[in-house]
Structure formats: structure tokens, C-alpha cells
């Protein structure tokens, strides 16, 4: 009785807490692009945390099993299941089996919060994996920080995700690196000197990524000749593209999601703006090929890995995934979740105490872990310092063209 009272009081506190945070985190996403030289928001959590009891180690996964991001949620679920199956088949961790508990976020930020609360409060997991979307990860990270349970984010690239507290980590790169990497690729490899930038003003991911790209491209000596905006949900971009065409750029950087990039590519072509298009990991969907048509062919975007990579980890993962689920490992989210789970296991192996609090420091010590999506080293800021893989869009799919090693960009 007492316990449930305490829990509900805690829940009320957290509702109040979550209610006032989005504002701060929103401004952080667009203004903070300093590259992580100073550690923002990495406080050590105060709570006592959960601990492993009995012979099973409980780990939670939050994923969008319903709603618009369902394909990413499904990939995420599969990746985690595969990792857990493999570790248990190999005898578990120090004799203890892993139990995976999956909670649906319904593609909603509130869902991310309640799913995490359930995992942390009721199921007493020692670690939470996920989410794919930054917006859903943010409230989940706050819950984890409050309860001193580590969260390993999967595809959340927004910079402020790991600034929610010292218990949040991620296995993907951040938008700070992604934007700078694409600027470098555009300037040094594609030899583009004058770029135009097209931003989705409604999407914090897009505004942040564009901002970094512009800064990085200018610092390399390039020129930004046009900066145009649209809002996700728009369907006609020809007016913006006509403005851009008049400035004669060498290339076009589109930082939005594939839902708009596809039509932009098609309309760019219909206006005769024949320059290469570049973008970030928001392009990662086969749907881009249909909606972009010939216009998107020849475009480049930064992603986390590619299934055709010639590394043993990738080959094993792709084979095992196909064996278990009968399909190709879809988006990068399957591999990233698999890696997040593997990183968690690795930390558990090095953690004799087996409490969620000791696990936090064990995860922060992960170095040179060979993941499917690349080598993972968790930095003091909680971020993985990983290379980006530039993919080229061909008629039938995405082909890797260049790996860009991690570097720190200070804008």
C-alpha cells in the first residue's frame, strides 16, 4: 500500500516534471550545436535504481509497434529479439538468462513516457533500450534519469537526447556530426562549392541538421547561396525550388524526412534543377525511391551502416536476421537496436554488482565495441563516436560509397 502511494506520488511529480521540460529541450535542439566539448546535462542520478534478482536479467525495449513509425518499431523489435536469442543460446551472462520485455510507444511521445514508466516501475528492468525517434526518447530519458536506470537510445540523433541526464546513452551518431560529415563530403569529395539548403521548418531534426551543415560547409570555405524553408505536410515545393535554381547552386542539401524529400526530388527535376541532392539519415526508407522517382537517383545521404558492408558483424547479422525473420534486415534501425542490446550485454558482463546504477557506469566505459553499425565507443557525453556511411541512391536501392570517420565539429 505504502509502496503504491509512493509510486503514484512519484508519477505525479514526473508528470509535472515532464510537463515543463519540452520547452527547454526544444530550444536546446536548435541552438546547441557546439559538438559536446562541455558536458551539458550529464548529472549522475540520485535514485537507488533497480537490481537483478534471481536468475534472469530483465531488459526493456520501447518501440513504436503501432502508429506511423510502425516499420521502424518492427525493425527495432526484431533486432532486439535476435540479440537476446543469441546471448541466451550462448549461455546468457555469467549464467543468468536475459528476459526482454517489449512495450509499445504507439509512435507518440506520451507513449514513450508511460511505456518506460511501466518497464522501470513495474517490471523493474535494469536497462531500457530505444527509441528510434528523438521526440519519443526525450520523455523516456527523463523517466530513466529519475529512476537511475540506464537508457540506450537507438536512432535518436537529436543532440539534446543525451543531455537529459547521465543515465542516457546512444549507439548512433548525433546530428552535429552527421551534418558536418555531409558538408565535408559535399565540399571535399563531390567538389561542390556553392550549396543551397532546404529545411523543414516544422521538424527540430531538420532545422538542427541544416544549421550544422551550413556552419560546417562555410567553415570549409564553401558558400551557401540559398536557404529555403517548407513545412512537413506541404506537397508543392516548386516555388522554393525555382528560387534556388535562380541562385545556380552546385548541390542541394535537404535535411527533412523522406516523406517530403521524395516529392522535392521529383519537382526539382521537373524544374530543370539538375544538381546532386544530399541529406541525412531521415532519408532511410525504400519509399524514397517511389516518391522521388528519377529525381532522387544520384542523391547522397548519411546513414549508420549498410547491409552489403564487408564486415563479419554485418554478414552474421544479415544472415541470422534472414534466418529468423525471413526478410532482409530493413532499415538501419534493426541493426542499431541489435547493437544497443549487445552494448548492454557487454556492460552487464563487466558489471559484477548487476544493479541499474552500476550498469550506468559500466555502459559509459564501453570502448571499441564491434557493432553491426560500426565500432561503438561511448564518449563522456553519452554519445557513440561512430563513423557515418554515405549512401548513394540508385534506381534499385541504396549503395554505400564512402565511410566518413568520426571527427568533432565545433561550430
Amino acid at each position, binding site marked *: 500500500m505504502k509502496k503504491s502511494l509512493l509510486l503514484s506520488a512519484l508519477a505525479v511529480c514526473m508528470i509535472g516534471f515532464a510537463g515543463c521540460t519540452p520547452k527547454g529541450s526544444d530550444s536546446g535542439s536548435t541552438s546547441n550545436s557546439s559538438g559536446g566539448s562541455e558536458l551539458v546535462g550529464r548529472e549522475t542520478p540520485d535514485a537507488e535504481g533497480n537490481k537483478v534478482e534471481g536468475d534472469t536479467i530483465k531488459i526493456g525495449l520501447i518501440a513504436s509497434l503501432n502508429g506511423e513509425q510502425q516499420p521502424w518499431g518492427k525493425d527495432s523489435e526484431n533486432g532486439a529479439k535476435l540479440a537476446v536469442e543469441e546471448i541466451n543460446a550462448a549461455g546468457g551472462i555469467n549464467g543468468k538468462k536475459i528476459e526482454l520485455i517489449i512495450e509499445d510507444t504507439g509512435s507518440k511521445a506520451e507513449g514513450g513516457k508511460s511505456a518506460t514508466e511501466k518497464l522501470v516501475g513495474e517490471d523493474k528492468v535494469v536497462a531500457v533500450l530505444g527509441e528510434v525517434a528523438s521526440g519519443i526518447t526525450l520523455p523516456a530519458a527523463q523517466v530513466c534519469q529519475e529512476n537511475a536506470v540506464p537508457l540506450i537510445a537507438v536512432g535518436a540523433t537529436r543532440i539534446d537526447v543525451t543531455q537529459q541526464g547521465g543515465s542516457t546513452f546512444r549507439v548512433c551518431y548525433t546530428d552535429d556530426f552527421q551534418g558536418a560529415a555531409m558538408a565535408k563530403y559535399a565540399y571535399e569529395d563531390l567538389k561542390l562549392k556553392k550549396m543551397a539548403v532546404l529545411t523543414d521548418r516544422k521538424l527540430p531534426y531538420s532545422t538542427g541538421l541544416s544549421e550544422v551543415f551550413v556552419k560546417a560547409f562555410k567553415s570549409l570555405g564553401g558558400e551557401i547561396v540559398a536557404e529555403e524553408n517548407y513545412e512537413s505536410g506541404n*506537397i508543392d515545393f516548386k516555388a522554393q525550388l525555382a528560387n534556388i535554381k535562380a541562385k545556380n547552386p552546385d548541390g542541394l542539401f535537404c535535411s527533412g524526412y523522406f516523406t517530403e524529400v521524395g516529392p522535392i526530388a521529383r519537382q526539382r527535376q521537373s524544374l530543370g534543377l539538375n544538381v546532386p541532392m544530399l541529406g541525412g539519415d531521415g532519408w532511410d526508407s525504400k519509399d524514397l525511391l517511389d516518391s522521388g522517382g528519377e529525381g532522387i537517383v544520384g542523391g547522397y545521404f548519411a546513414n549508420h551502416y549498410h547491409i552489403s558492408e564487408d564486415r563479419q558483424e554485418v554478414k552474421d547479422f544479415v544472415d541470422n536476421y534472414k534466418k529468423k525473420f525471413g526478410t532482409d534486415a530493413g532499415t538501419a534501425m534493426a541493426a542499431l537496436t541489435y547493437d544497443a542490446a549487445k552494448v548492454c550485454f557487454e556492460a552487464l558482463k563487466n558489471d559484477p554488482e548487476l544493479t541499474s546504477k552500476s550498469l550506468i557506469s559500466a555502459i559509459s566505459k564501453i570502448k571499441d565495441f564491434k557493432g553491426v553499425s560500426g565500432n561503438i565507443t561511448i564518449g563522456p557525453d553519452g554519445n557513440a563516436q561512430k563513423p557515418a556511411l554515405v549512401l548513394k541512391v540508385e534506381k534499385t536501392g541504396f549503395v554505400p560509397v564512402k565511410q566518413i570517420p568520426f571527427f568533432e565539429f565545433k561550430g
Partner: protein
Amino acid sequence: MNWDLLPQQLVIGIQLGAVYALIALGYTMVYGVLRFINFAHGDVYMVGAYLAYYTSMQWFDRNSMNPYVLLFVMLIISMVGCAILGLSVERLAYRPLRTAPKIAVLITAIGVSLFIEYGGKFFFKTSPKPSISQDVNVFSKPINIGGITLDGSQLTVLGVTLVLMAGLWFFVTHTKTGRAMRAVSHDFGAASLMGINVNRVVAITFGIGSALAGAGGMMNATAIGTPLDPFYGLVPGVKAFVAAVLGGIGNIPGAVVGGLIMGVMETLIVWLGYGGYKDAVAFVLLIVILLIKPSGLFGSTVEKV
């Protein structure tokens, strides 16, 4: 401001406005005969786009079929499908409320709109969002005329829109049913006393308006390749509604002019460098028109909209 770019932007605006005009016609025609705003009209447009998607990507084999025939079949299926949808909505949702207060019909319209959207969510599934492949569109090559670059498919959209509008104009002014429609629009009660089958006229109005929206949905989805979702018709629906109000709701040429003005205004705001505010144009325009000239550009009587 780049003045050299103005002709290009005006052409883009007119192309954009043509589709708004096509949807606005449905709003204005229904308002003309029944004096209420059919808020489900934008969703009919969405269904038109989906029908075009299923026709080209699933029901027919696009690789073995003549692409021009396929486009024509898509247009016909979208128009007929939407006409049937419009007729059923009118028969099932609006006709039983013919004598009910206007507010009840208006609320029903919102209900129908939500019904179609969430029904779409159930039937079409939301993820991943599909879009019509570019190889369906045989008109997608750019054409350069005197420094203005045009897309063949946009020219086609413009052409088809003009043909449909001319057909509508002929129908309304030169046929018996068209005359009946104008009579009903003029005075519902008197028309019915004069022996006009009012229910039939209303049904035909819904059918034609919905078919035009379906054509708009099919053409826009095919020409620009936007991924479809069940809420696809929401924003174009609102914009077309504003276009209809701008032109004077209930007035057919007004809807066309309103749609074109809307398209051009949206393009010019981008030309001025405020691309992110494109959607705001519609709402600012609505407020301004309601303050300055509530009857719209061509409306004769002041109506509460």
C-alpha cells in the same frame, strides 16, 4: 526579390491554383444548393488520390499497359469512385437531415470527415506511406519555354482542369439539369414547388463536385508524387474552402478565380523568401476577406460562412 523569377513563379502559382480551384468547385456547388459547407469534401479528394494509387500500382499491370490509357483509366476510376462516395455520403448522412437545423448538418459534415479519415486509416493502413511511382507519369519531362521551365505533367493538369471546368460550365448553363441546379440554388422551396426533383438535383451536385475533387486528387498525387495518408485531404481541403470563400461561396466562376489567386499568393510568399509561411497564407486570406468583403469577390449576398 528577383524580378526575373516572377514569370516562372506566376506559372507555378497558376498550376497550383488550378487544383485548388477544382476542389473549391465542390464546396461552392454544394453550398449553392444546400447552403452548408461539406467539410468532408477534402477527404473525398484524399480517396481520389488513393484510388489512383491502387489503380496504377496494384489493380492494373502498369508495365504491360499503354501509359496514356493507364492515366486515363486512373482518372476515370478516381472520378467515378469519388462520385459514388459523394452520392452515398449525401444519401446516408445529409438527406435525412434536410429539414434539420443547419448546425446539425454542419456537425454531421465534420463527423463524416472524421469517419472517412479514420475509415481510411483502417482500410489503407498508414505505414509505410505509399506514393505513386514516377514511371506512371509519362508527362514528367521538363519543357523550356522562353526561360520558364514547365513540367509536362503540370501542363497536363492545367489542361485537364480547364476541360473539366469548361464541361461544368456547359453543364450548368446549357442543360436542363444544370438549369434545375441553378433554380434550386436560387430558391430551394420554390424550385421544389415548380416540380423540380430537388433530391435528384442535390445528388447530382454532390456527384459532380466529388468527381472533380477525385480528379484533383488523382492528378496531384500522380504529378508530384507525395506519399499518401488518410489525412492527405485536410490541408488542400481547407485551402480550397478558403478559395471558395474568397471567390464568393456559391459562385462557380468565383471558386475558380479564388483558387487561382490562392495558388499565386502562396507561390509569391515563397518568392519573397518566406517559404515556411506558405500554409499561413490561406488563413490570413480568410481573415482578411471576412473582415473586408465577407461576400467574397463575386458573391452577391452576404452569407454567414
